[in-house]
């Protein structure tokens, strides 16, 4: 039964979907796949060990952590907050777009901001609410919409620009997976082909956010 070999895929899908312990799920999927394919236990363990050693490059981003720790303990996040809070006289949509630009650029340099916690809740959401309520006070529903759009903007910027950084775990995972599957690709070429999507995301989300302002511009 060669279809039994797909058991690893099933374990991964169900394990993640049911929120089981992720590390244990991946290890179990690797073991199960090897065993049902007729390998001996020691052979499976050897392949797992070799696979882990051959893919050490995926974890190279650990090397960047000491530097990030040093600038963080010396106020990098505070400096970013100080910079953003200087923004004045912009509409809600424009505040979102400026934040989107900052998020994409910092992502490209591997500067990981914990956006939702550090910027969206304490900074971008109140700034956008203040800007949108200049003409009319906000309804409860509108407040909820602004919060949602602020959070969404952080996700857009974060997701679609993170692969512009050569030492990001995503880029390293892609290069290493492709190598495991028999196709060598360089990390720089992955970064290169991640540029179009980052730019397009900025353009269409930018337009989406500008249109957002119209929701607060209607004369009652």
């Amino acid at each position, binding site marked *: 039964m*060669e*279809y039994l*070999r*797909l058991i*690893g*895929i099933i374990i991964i899908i169900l394990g993640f*979907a049911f*929120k089981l*312990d992720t*590390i244990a799920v991946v290890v179990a999927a*690797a073991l199960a*796949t090897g065993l049902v*394919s007729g390998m001996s236990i*020691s052979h499976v*363990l*050897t392949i*797992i*060990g*070799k*696979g*882990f*050693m051959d*893919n*050490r*490059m*995926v*974890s*190279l*981003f*650990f*090397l960047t*952590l000491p*530097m990030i*720790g*040093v600038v963080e*303990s*010396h*106020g990098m996040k505070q*400096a970013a907050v100080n910079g953003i809070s200087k923004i004045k006289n912009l509409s809600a949509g424009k505040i979102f777009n400026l934040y989107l630009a900052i998020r994409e650029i910092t992502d490209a340099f591997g500067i990981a901001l914990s956006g*939702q916690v550090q910027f969206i809740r304490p900074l971008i959401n109140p700034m956008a609410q203040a800007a949108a309520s200049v003409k009319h006070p906000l309804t409860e529903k509108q407040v*909820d*919409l602004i*919060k949602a759009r602020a*959070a*969404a903007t*952080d*996700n857009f910027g974060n997701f679609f620009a993170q*692969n512009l950084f050569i*030492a990001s*775990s995503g880029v390293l995972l*892609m290069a290493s997976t*492709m190598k495991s599957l*028999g*196709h060598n690709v360089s990390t*720089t070429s992955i970064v290169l*082909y991640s540029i179009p*999507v980052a730019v397009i995301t900025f353009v*269409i*989300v930018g337009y*989406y956010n500008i249109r957002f302002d119209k929701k607060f511009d209607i004369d009652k």
Partner: protein
Amino acid sequence: MNANNILEIFYVLMGIIMIFASIESFRDKDNSARIGTGLFWLILGLIFAIGRYLPNLVIGLLIIFIGILSLMKQIKVGKLKEVNKELAEKSAKKLGGWLFFPSIILAVLSILISEFTKLGGQVGIGIASVVALIVAMILSKADAKTTYHDSERMVRSVGTAGILPQLLATLGVIFTASGVGDITAKTISGIFPVGNHLLGVVLYCVAMVIFTMIMGNAFAAFAVITAGIGVPFIVAQGGNAAVVAAIGMTSGYCGTLMTPMAANFNSLPVALMEMKDNLGVIKQQVPIALSLLVIQIILMYFLAF
């Protein structure tokens, strides 16, 4: 000395940083799982520092042991030494934008080394990380002790999530060795013909979205779907592997935008800002996610072939 030997030096450095995290995890009296957590970082540290001298069978056994530790809930972040807010505030005023300088050095230098030397991308990241750290230490006048604590704090805060990408890549190796890709390809090609470029691209991108939505994790979907669909249906047909990887992964992110399974991104803000609508963030993201998916399918089709 070739690039691979230089890379080994950086793996040893990584192992040392992980051993720092291990020492501090063992010392963390407030962590109910301090022994397990300390062991977790110690094992990883040893694998990176001296793993090349160990038989692969032993490495495999250690990975299984980590899996068991994690299953038993014996790996926890624990209590991290918090950043001194007052000091950080003061230093932020003094250094301002210069605090971003080391990150810029890291990104630019690693690209330059990768493009203009024979050392390759990985060694580039290694050298650039060390240079950027030295620059950060000079800028902030951080001493060895501060740097040690900053390093162990960052590594510990990453936790088991930090090792997940490497484990997923390892799973890819097992899948290849067991012929999983060939079987899925054979199964799917019973329904969809292999060889139609556009169909292959649509199939791969849409599968990335759906599986990411089910699993809540694009990295996990990438390991599975690229082996099963991406490589046989696109790369094996002459598609550019870098294009397939880059755009395939971001197609998966479109799935992340639309699923409550990705709680970190879609539910955390709802809780943080006390929103009324539980699905509010997702609703704002769906139009962009679907537009980007269509755009990415078109992009992949034209860039890959």
